[in-house]
């Protein structure tokens, strides 16, 4: 286990560094001049030159990269091209929205899909089992922003139960206030996510229910429910966990769209704005954090799988 952990950690580190380099190079190779976002429609040639100097577009790419990488090793993400403000404090502030949103939505989706998926599998012939399957089919085909828009029109504009957008100025100083702002976004993400998760859970449950070890466990005299709990969950959990890792990462990054619908000051809306303005330091900063989160989640999912089922032959990259 220790050597596995070491190898897996080394892989984490190397893939992270490579991903960061790729992002930097990709951004620089692509066309577009970041200084343009600083200009007005009456900019003079001197102002154009000043804007280019401000974003460092007048320096060679290699020089820009080395400077940026040196900063990174000191955990300094640099300063925004557009606002000249440091990147890291803004990301930190926005994580207080995105992280709770992701975790709550994920937890809620997990609860919904575990219940719905197992029911749909075990009671596949009952009307509610069929209904769950049908709804989950519908759920994977609906764009998430559409669900969000519907939620706002019904629960905010129609019923006036919840705020339509935004986040309290004082963040979590009043947790009830903050939770109220996050309720609709969380439900939106959770509903859409649980649709695909339900399908995975249902399929994993069906695999377990139809499996040989469950049959043999029952043949040896265990009760059905007991056998299901003791063997089924453990065996069914392994494929589900690797999916969960990816789904959690997807939720975290998929927040871009939802934050946009609900006007939340999270990482996603920061990225969107940065992309619009070609604000490379901000794009790199957000991707730095999100890549790190995604890779760490993958790491944890692999380790968890390994803990649950040590027989598993897992490659260092965790997928084989």
């Amino acid at each position, binding site marked *: 286990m220790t050597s596995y952990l070491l190898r897996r950690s080394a892989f984490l580190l190397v893939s992270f560094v490579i991903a960061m380099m790729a992002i930097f190079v990709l951004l620089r190779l692509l066309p577009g001049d970041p200084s343009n976002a600083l200009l007005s429609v*009456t*900019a003079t040639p001197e102002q154009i030159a000043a*804007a280019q100097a401000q974003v460092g577009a007048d320096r060679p790419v290699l020089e820009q990269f080395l400077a940026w990488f040196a900063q990174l090793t000191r955990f300094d993400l640099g300063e925004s091209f*557009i*606002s*000249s403000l440091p990147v890291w404090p803004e990301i930190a*502030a926005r994580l207080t929205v995105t992280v709770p949103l992701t975790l709550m939505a994920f*937890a809620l989706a997990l609860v919904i899909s575990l219940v719905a998926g197992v029911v749909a599998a075990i009671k596949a012939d009952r009307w509610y089992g069929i209904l769950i399957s049908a709804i989950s089919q519908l759920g994977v085909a609906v764009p998430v922003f559409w669900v969000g828009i519907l939620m706002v029109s019904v629960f905010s504009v129609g019923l*006036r139960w919840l705020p339509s*957008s935004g986040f309290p100025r004082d963040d979590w100083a009043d947790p009830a206030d903050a939770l109220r702002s996050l309720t609709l976004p969380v439900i939106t993400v959770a509903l859409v996510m649980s649709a695909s998760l339900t399908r995975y859970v249902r399929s994993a449950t069906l695999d377990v229910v139809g499996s040989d070890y469950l049959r043999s466990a029952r043949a040896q005299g265990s009760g059905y429910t007991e056998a299901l709990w003791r063997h089924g969950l453990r065996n069914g959990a392994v494929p589900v966990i690797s999916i969960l890792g990816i789904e959690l990462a997807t939720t975290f990054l998929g927040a871009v769209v939802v934050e946009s619908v609900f006007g939340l000051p999270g990482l996603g809306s920061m990225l969107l704005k940065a992309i619009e303005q070609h604000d490379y330091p901000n794009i790199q900063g957000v991707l730095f954090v999100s890549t790190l989160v995604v890779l760490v989640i993958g790491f944890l999912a692999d380790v968890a799988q390994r803990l649950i089922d040590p027989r598993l032959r897992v490659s260092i990259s965790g997928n084989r």
Partner: protein
Amino acid sequence: MKKHIGFVALGLAASLLLAGCATGADSSSSAADATIEIGSLYEPSNLSNFGGGGQGVTEAFNGNVYEGLYQLTDDGSVEPLLAESNTVSDDGLTYTFSLQDGVTFHSGKALTSTDVKASIEAVLSDDSQSARKSSFGAITSIETPDESTVVVTLAERSISFIYNLSYIWIINADATDLETTEDGTGPYVLDEWKRGSSLALTRFDDYWGDAAANAEVVFNYFTDATALSNALLTGEVDIVTSVQSPDALSQFSDNADYVVNDGDSTTKEILVFNDRVAPFDNVDVRKAIYSAIDTTKLLNSIWGDYGTLIGSMVPPTDPWYEDLTEVNPYDPDLAKQLLASGGQPDGFEFTLDTPSYDPHPVVAEFVKSELAKVGITVNINTISADEWYTKVYKAQDFTATLQEHVNDRDVVWYGNPDFYWGYNNPDVTQWVAEAEASATTDEQTAKLKQVNEQIAQDAASVWLYLYPQIVVASSDVSGYPVNGLNSQFYAYDIALK
């Protein structure tokens, strides 16, 4: 893991419950203690007027946090603010300003002439990115004979000098870190800027003039117009500074709880030709295109019953406005005749570089279908804002494009033959220069009217329409500005009933 799920689920349930019983808890005992929630689409990038703060910083800070020697009021006139009075020498080259007494910065320091000098010099400095820098090219020296007097000497007459001064914020000369903090003299102090979300201003108790009518204003920033109107509908904001689409307006216009204000804007949607290149170097061809486009229908498509048609670059709030909409009337038959006399009887084909954001794509499609009727084929080339600056603005490599020009008094750009649209009429260039050197505003107005008429005659561009400036507010608030001149939004008179 289980525990966490339980905790979170509890939290959600609790929040749903709370949401059920909580309604907008406004704790305003009296109007003067009120907090005004303002909704806007324009969040500042930073808080500096020099370094890419954008129109958001003007909206939130101009007149609210920072003040100039002069102020452009909501109806477009220029009034003294921090300058108590001024005298101008007979040759129009020396301006002497005496400052208001008892003005202090938010940091507590008293305003002196040194601060004024430093603030003007900051705009003029080599690394300044202020959009106004070029307006002050005539300044040769700034002197401060005493603490409350500033003397500015110009190299040549500049009739717009006082007006231009209204754009210069007077900032404490010792202040640092102006990108995240402020030190101005205005009626509000910056309380907190929560990036991506809101900016709160609170009343400055030691303000030299009349105190603000409310205790706090909060600018809430939205990225999406629909979300913004939802927020107004649900009472999360009291006022929307500038509605950018008429789609949601019917929800407010038929509702006694809201007031829809149709004010004056200075933002023009323009079909810009590259006047240097064929076929748009031909006046008749440009006029043909102007007459081929039914701007009335276009305006109605984009803005419903709002907005104004203009016949040239000048909006009605500029002193040299004239109604020139009949110079190039909508008349497809005339357009065909003009095309023939312009040497293009069979029509032609051109590429329209269209910025990818609203309203340009829709306008481009409309222009395309209108011009098809007179035999002109338009190829729409959609480009990003970034490409627009690189290709159209800097390289001037385009045939025609769409763009909005937001500032007031910006007809003078037609006097600059190097500007991206390449309009080069030596008469106009000379008149613009003469207007600036005028001794009186009457003289300036007369000259610029001449410019105005000439560019309309030449159809230098097609001025498609003037945006409306729509402020929608809850009927509970009053005293807000209704005209969106240069994106400013004075908040100090807003009161909650």
